[in-house]
């Protein structure tokens, strides 16, 4: 049982974790999710007593980690697969950890066998692949046969066989009555492994519920509706009718419509009433990944944008049109993920009032979903790039010279 109460960690002006409270119960795999930089690893380090919380506390079985008698026998952790001295044999690495907590040396060979590294036990871990490093880290976590296990991104770099093995390992460890706390950003993996989810964003708790509840609470089921591709006006007509009836309509990439807020029979009736033929009308449930993306979209610190390559492209021949920018799923489309359920008022995640804007000067959460829209215009060169095009020309002609010389 891991229990965090009001956990807060500040590094100078940056608040990595703010007022985090949660419980991780034994007998289940608890997933710990959050975007990059959301404070997952900081929280893990505070659980393990490596970092001292600025305020609040976290206990394991009622004790702060550093007060646990023979802590590695109670808690095993994989923090970072690269947190080993590369010059040491795998076996010696585990042996020195075993000696530190009075674990018999025989256990070292045992866990090496468990993770499948017995053949490379005498090889220096510097030469290990990422997957082998993860296995070594998992071996170190299992060394003390502990009651509580923490894994930070355990499947990073593992092959499919390894991922399956880790998945089954987590489940079997939890089935033995242990507490298993796994951080990951692989939603598909968590959907298969975890029973319970704790989601944080910008260091704050976003959600603490079972995987099933999480999906149903954070994803509106939607209907996919397709009108005949040959008649675009039918699509417009249906969109208008559905919107009028209170549904929310989003176009999909392939010309279909994503409709929320209306049951399937009603959509069919509306289409019939509007005299629109349907090629497709199918129910969909958002995946865990979509539910997660929707929940955290306001709390993402590091957001990718479209690569502009401005000033680096060759000048267009006169009259030529730039290639049309095809929209990419999830990029530059603010409404790509299913809109929030009506009861949440369209606000996926609101930062508490009085909090400053994001740590990197990013807009605070309410404004964030709109931000990608400004970068995802249909053709970024058509408007903004025009004034700078003349200035970019000398550079562009320079770039073409080596090609001419060839």
């Amino acid at each position, binding site marked *: *049982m891991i229990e965090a109460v009001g956990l807060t960690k500040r590094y100078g002006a940056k608040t990595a974790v703010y007022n985090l409270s949660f419980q991780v*119960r*034994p*007998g289940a795999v608890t997933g710990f999710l959050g975007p990059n930089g959301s404070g997952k690893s900081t929280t893990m*380090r505070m659980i*393990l*007593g*490596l*970092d*001292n919380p600025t305020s609040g506390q976290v206990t*394991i*079985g*009622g*004790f702060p*980690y*550093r007060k*646990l*008698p*023979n*802590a*590695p*026998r*109670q*808690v095993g*952790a994989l*923090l*970072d697969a*690269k*947190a*080993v*001295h*590369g*010059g*040491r*044999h795998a076996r*010696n*690495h585990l*042996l*020195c*950890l075993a*000696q*530190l*907590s*009075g*674990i*018999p040396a*025989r*256990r070292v060979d*045992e866990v090496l066998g468990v993770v499948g590294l017995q053949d490379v036990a005498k090889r220096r871990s510097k030469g290990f692949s990422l997957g082998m490093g993860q296995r070594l880290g998992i071996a*170190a976590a299992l060394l*003390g*046969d*502990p*009651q509580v296990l923490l894994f930070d991104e355990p499947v990073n770099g593992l092959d499919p066989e390894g991922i399956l093995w880790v998945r089954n390992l987590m489940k079997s460890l939890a089935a*033995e*009555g*242990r507490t298993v706390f796994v951080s990951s950003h692989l939603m598909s993996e968590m959907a298969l492994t975890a029973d319970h989810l704790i989601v944080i964003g910008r260091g704050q708790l976003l959600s603490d519920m079972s995987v099933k509840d999480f999906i149903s609470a954070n994803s509106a089921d939607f209907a996919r509706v397709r009108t005949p591709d040959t008649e675009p006006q039918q699509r417009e007509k249906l969109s208008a009718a559905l919107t009028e009836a209170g549904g929310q309509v989003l176009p999909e990439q392939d010309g279909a419509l994503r409709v929320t807020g209306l049951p399937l029979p009603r959509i069919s009736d509306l289409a019939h009433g509007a005299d629109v033929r349907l090629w497709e009308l199918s129910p969909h449930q958002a995946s865990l990944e979509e539910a997660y993306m929707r929940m955290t979209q306001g709390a993402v610190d590091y957001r990718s944008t479209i690569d502009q390559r401005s000033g680096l492209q060759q000048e267009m021949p006169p009259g030529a049109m730039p290639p049309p920018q095809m929209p990419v799923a999830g990029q530059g489309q603010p409404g790509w993920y299913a809109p929030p359920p009506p009861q949440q008022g369209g606000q996926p995640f609101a930062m508490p009032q009085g909090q400053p804007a994001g740590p990197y000067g990013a807009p605070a959460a309410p404004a964030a979903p709109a931000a990608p829209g400004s970068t995802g215009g249909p053709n970024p060169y058509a408007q903004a790039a025009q004034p700078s095009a003349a200035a970019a020309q000398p550079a562009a002609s320079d770039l073409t010279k080596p090609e001419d010389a060839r």
Partner: protein
Amino acid sequence: MSTPQPPMPQQAAPQPSMPPQQAAPNWQAAPAPSYTSPIPIVRTHLGHALSSEWTKIRSVRSTMWTLGVFVLLVVGIGLAAGAAVSSSSPDLSGENPLSLGFFGLLLGSMCIITLGVLTTASEYGTGMIRTTMTACPSRGRVLAAKAIVFFVVAFVITVVSAAFVGFAQVAMLDGTGADEPTGDDWLKGTVGIGLYIALLGLLSLIVGSLVRHSAGAITIMIGTVLAPLVIAMFMFSESLSDLRDALFEYSIPNQLSVFYDNSLSRSGPSGWDPLWIILGVTAVAFVAAYALLEKRDV
């Protein structure tokens, strides 16, 4: 309390009937399902940390390299100096033949400094420290174990090398009129110099723990060894002569030479003084490193 339990036969299935040892947190009190390991839990102490650190120090190549180069420098330069002096057959009456080992040890101390820094700082560089501190949340115990293991290794290697070179030089210089070293000379030239070099290495280990960066800590320590001497060399001004003399006398190379009674000057530390100086400095640094280690985030 501290006696490790005999290892139990390993069993795949958990044994809920077996109570945990000692004052472990009472997992059974939780209403939820819980797991109890069949491997007996022992109360850990410094001995466990010592065996762990011994495994660590002997299982990396940098230990073998630095100590190998150290022995090579001390023995090689010592024998070369002995051979050079004996072949030129000067009049060495009144000289302590052990002092020929000084040059090798001065250069060799750089290896001990490097090893000392690497013992702590390399764990920070590789991230191993997080694994170590998770496996042993008593951070002070880890530092103490590192200090003891390193000190013993450095002391033994230095004493053995210095004694070997000393015997060789005494044999080589037989007949050149050099003094036969007294018992006190031998003690200072082996145990004294061994303690001093090992403490210098221990200070490096502590600086490594404070700075947490291998290259930075090695630079600081080599600077500490060489800078006072180099700075003093360029203090021509008469008004600075007192400072210059102090820098000369308390520079580490000069303190090393005190163990051979051939200090650059006669007013500075003498006898066993250098040992007490470095012991005091190291003790203060150790207390600071200990306090900082307990307080800082890993």
